[in-house]
């Protein structure tokens, strides 16, 4: 038998996840594609999922590992619930606690050379404020007001940095996200024009059904002297 080979390559992958804070909360966005190499194989998957009433996670990278992370976290919530009910714990796990726990899980796996091949965005509402950040397959933990993973770090982050203002309006935040998603659709070969938005406010989590965003192709006619 061959020796155990770990650190496998990702097979079914998801592209960028974007996140931006605004006045009343935070919005995450991603497309609904699971790529199989260059094949756009699964076109209706959910890469942003709720974990508790006040937390969502979004995943870039290997989809099976993201599903496993979802399982691990939801199991943790159930265990915590049992402690809450027996009076040993105060309340439901906070987004920052979930984020911290996940970073330990991912770092532990990296140390064993058997990573969960993901870049995960954790976002939620706690104690009247928004918490948002990422953890990646190396175990790097990072918090910020604007977040992007995958190709989004190259295309979306600069646009979001320019447009972001502390306590911006909801409509402006959505506009920024839509612009970034459009740019990503133009330039990232592993995306489709089908997106899901997840909004978290003090009221809770709301994840939309998939929507399409308008794209502009007029520049195709602007070429002069075509060969």
């Amino acid at each position: 038998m061959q020796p155990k080979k770990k650190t496998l390559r990702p097979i079914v992958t998801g592209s960028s996840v974007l996140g931006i804070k605004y006045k009343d909360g935070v919005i995450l966005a991603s497309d609904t594609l699971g790529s199989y190499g260059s094949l756009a194989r699964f076109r209706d998957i959910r890469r942003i999922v709720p974990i508790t009433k006040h937390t969502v996670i979004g995943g870039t990278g290997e989809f099976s590992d993201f599903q496993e992370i979802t399982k691990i976290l939801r199991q943790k919530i159930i265990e915590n619930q049992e402690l809450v009910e027996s009076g040993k714990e105060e309340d439901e796990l906070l987004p920052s606690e979930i984020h911290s726990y996940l970073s330990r899980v991912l770092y532990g796996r990296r140390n064993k050379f058997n990573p969960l091949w993901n870049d995960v965005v954790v976002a939620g509402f706690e104690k009247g404020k928004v918490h948002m950040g990422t953890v990646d397959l190396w175990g790097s933990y990072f918090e910020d007001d604007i977040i992007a993973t995958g190709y989004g770090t190259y295309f979306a982050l600069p646009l979001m940095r320019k447009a972001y203002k502390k306590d911006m309006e909801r409509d402006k935040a959505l506009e920024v996200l839509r612009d970034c998603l459009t740019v990503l659709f133009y330039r990232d070969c592993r995306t489709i024009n089908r997106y899901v938005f997840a909004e978290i406010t003090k009221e809770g989590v709301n994840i939309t059904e998939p929507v399409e965003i308008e794209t502009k192709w007029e520049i195709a006619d602007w070429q002069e002297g075509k060969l």
Partner: protein
Amino acid sequence: MELIESPLQDLKKEVSTGTTIIAVQYQDGVIIGADSRTSSGSYAVNRVTDKLTPVHDYIYCLRSGSAADTQIIASYVSYYLNMFSIEEGCLPTVKKAAHMFREFCYQNKQYLLASIIVAGWDEENGGCVYNVPLGGSIIKQPFAIGGSGSSYLYGYCDIHFKENMTEEEAISFVSKGITEAIARDGSSGGICRIATINKDGVKRRTIYGNELQKFWEK
């Protein structure tokens, strides 16, 4: 490496179900279909394989990838499903079967080459199709295609699939797909095996090699 290898070299290659498999949800349940070729390199080890493997009364799996890996996984899942359904006193849901396949494929992803489609009928949800590709993700779909021959069917399926087809329409959809894939994929061939799974049980049929519809052949 020579382009045409000696036959003996073929037999040293891992036996794979280089394959075409399709599962489609229709009005009353699911229709599943597969070709019948098991290849070892370019030698057809079995030309009448049955890739439609039952794991329970109303639940089948369609296997692609390594023949050995998928056979043993299906065997384990079938064992556990039967055990649980006797303990629980009720038929398992397709979801349960699919998640069991997922567990095997995901936890052992380093060792396995298995891409499986799980399809069947249960009382709660009617016909369901779940795709468990390489890596061990689990994705529910209205229809799923897999195996090496499926590359040639993405266009065909996107154009011709409709939700809530009748049994006849769904069988036509599946059999034409398999036929076309057999025509274009060297690792798929033989006969087209089809099964209908609904509340009345499983009905199997076969379309023999020489009976397969002929499309543009030149």
